[in-house]
């Protein structure tokens, strides 16, 4: 494989020990339609960063590309110094990256506990079933229910809880607060902060920047398949006008 300038640069930054994940020059397509136009961003170990942007900006597609489930992708995605762009999804998962999809992906033919136990352990150091139940007590009460019989909020907790067992270090969470009641959004916010304390690194896709500001270290603003701005969370108040304009709120 010929090494592009992008690959070389991304590999070099990873080798410095700085970012856990470095995405550069990432382009992606669905059939003929070109959706990602050179995404550039990186995530350091232990950080929570968000991808903010309007509907259709390419946030979900970016997560799919990192996870290896976007069939047509090019560019460089370097994780712990290793290039992922050519790897199949199952190999990427085995390196310790876990994905919580926007549609949650709860399996109807599996019980709550079977859903939780489904993703295999890929690394040591994941949470135990007891720890996950301590984080989401609702799930324990409903452990024998059919996965899709849960409320929307419980399904979201299940979708997050499910990837905590595996030992994955980098979590890709796609709009975990979408369509949920404020009290549940709050609970998910607490959960994300606790996961950060426990050392997880998180890429969070959000449209709700109030929520994003409450949990993240840094924000990448995505528009038309590109990162157009980076805002440290400490500067978010100063940039509020700009963000409003970006997100069209």
């Amino acid at each position: 494989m010929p090494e592009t300038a992008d690959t070389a640069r991304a590999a070099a930054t990873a080798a410095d020990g700085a970012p856990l994940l470095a995405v550069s020059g990432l382009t992606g397509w669905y059939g003929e339609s070109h959706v990602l136009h050179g995404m550039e961003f990186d995530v350091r170990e232990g950080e929570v960063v968000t991808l903010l942007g309007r509907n259709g900006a390419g946030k979900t597609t970016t997560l799919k590309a990192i996870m290896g489930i976007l069939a047509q992708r090019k560019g460089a995605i370097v994780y712990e110094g290793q290039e992922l762009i050519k790897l199949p999804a199952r190999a990427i998962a085995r390196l310790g990256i876990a994905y919580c999809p926007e549609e949650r992906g709860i399996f109807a033919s599996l019980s709550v506990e079977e859903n939780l136990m489904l993703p295999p352990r890929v690394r040591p150091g994941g949470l135990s079933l007891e720890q996950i139940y301590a984080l989401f007590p609702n799930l324990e009460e409903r452990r024998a229910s059919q996965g899709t019989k849960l409320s929307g909020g419980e399904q979201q907790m299940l979708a997050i809880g499910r990837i905590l067992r595996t030992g994955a270090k980098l979590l890709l969470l796609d709009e975990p607060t979408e369509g949920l009641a404020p009290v549940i959004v709050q609970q998910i916010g607490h959960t994300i902060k606790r996961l950060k304390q426990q050392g997880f690194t998180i890429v969070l896709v959000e449209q709700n920047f109030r929520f994003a500001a409450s949990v993240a270290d840094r924000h990448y603003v995505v528009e038309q398949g590109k990162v157009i701005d980076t805002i440290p969370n400490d500067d978010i108040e100063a940039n509020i006008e700009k963000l409003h304009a970006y997100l069209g709120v």
Partner: protein
Amino acid sequence: MFELLGIPPQALFGQLLLGLINGSFYALLSLGLAVIFGLLNIINFTHGAQYMMGAFVAWMLLHYLGIGYWWALVIVPVAVGLTGIVLERLMISRLYHLDHLYGLLLTFGLALIIQGLFRNQYGISGEAYSIPSQLVGAQNLGFMFLPNYRLWVIAVSAAVCLGTWFVIEKTRLGAYLRAATENPVLVGAFGINVPRLVTLTYGFGVGLAALAGVLAAPIYSVNPNMGADLIIVVFAVVVIGGMGSILGAIVTGFGLGLIEGLTRVFYPEGSAVVIFVIMAIVLLVKPAGLFGRTA
């Protein structure tokens, strides 16, 4: 001696037994089809030919190598299952991104080729395969004789069906299978090797067909058309039970065998078509099948 609606009990129980035997084969075969359809989304038209291969390989083991029934019961499903794995890897797996229809055409074509090869080699007169000595004889139940071998077939089929159901519904491997049936992409993104799961599932379904073939060898004559005749009925069973439903395949298989047997007692003229009549009614009333999930 009592009579039921003017039917002598020997005839009634005899036909019920025959119905259970047929039901054992319907259940084993439709179970394999259901497992394959669930995960691969392919209607495996080669299933009848693979059942026939099961019977023939058992006969060949005995005829050419002197390996008997009990070993055949183990060797044949594995050997024929392996041929299934090769087919899946070399051909069927290339069609997953296309419409159902292509898988159906491919497997139908393969069935014709396999049956043709066996007809060429062995003709259509059929080969005899005798009942293993341990299972010769019958139990006298007073009102009828129950042949030991038939009892054995029913027991093996019921045990294998239950075991398969248990593995799919109650174990971790089964959870992978159910999840991959629903959303293979997400299951892959969790680090599970879905293509390998698919290949093994196809091999397992084919192995079930071959096991049915070994069980059938001592009852029916081993001939190249034995699968083609049976598989039409089995497809009707699958449609009635609901495509892809594991429990549906098992219950419908045994149930329809019994119904067919009863029809033979009370209205013999209808016995050849009763399953198809039921299929038509089910399709009208509940198109997804009795146990099918409506999406």
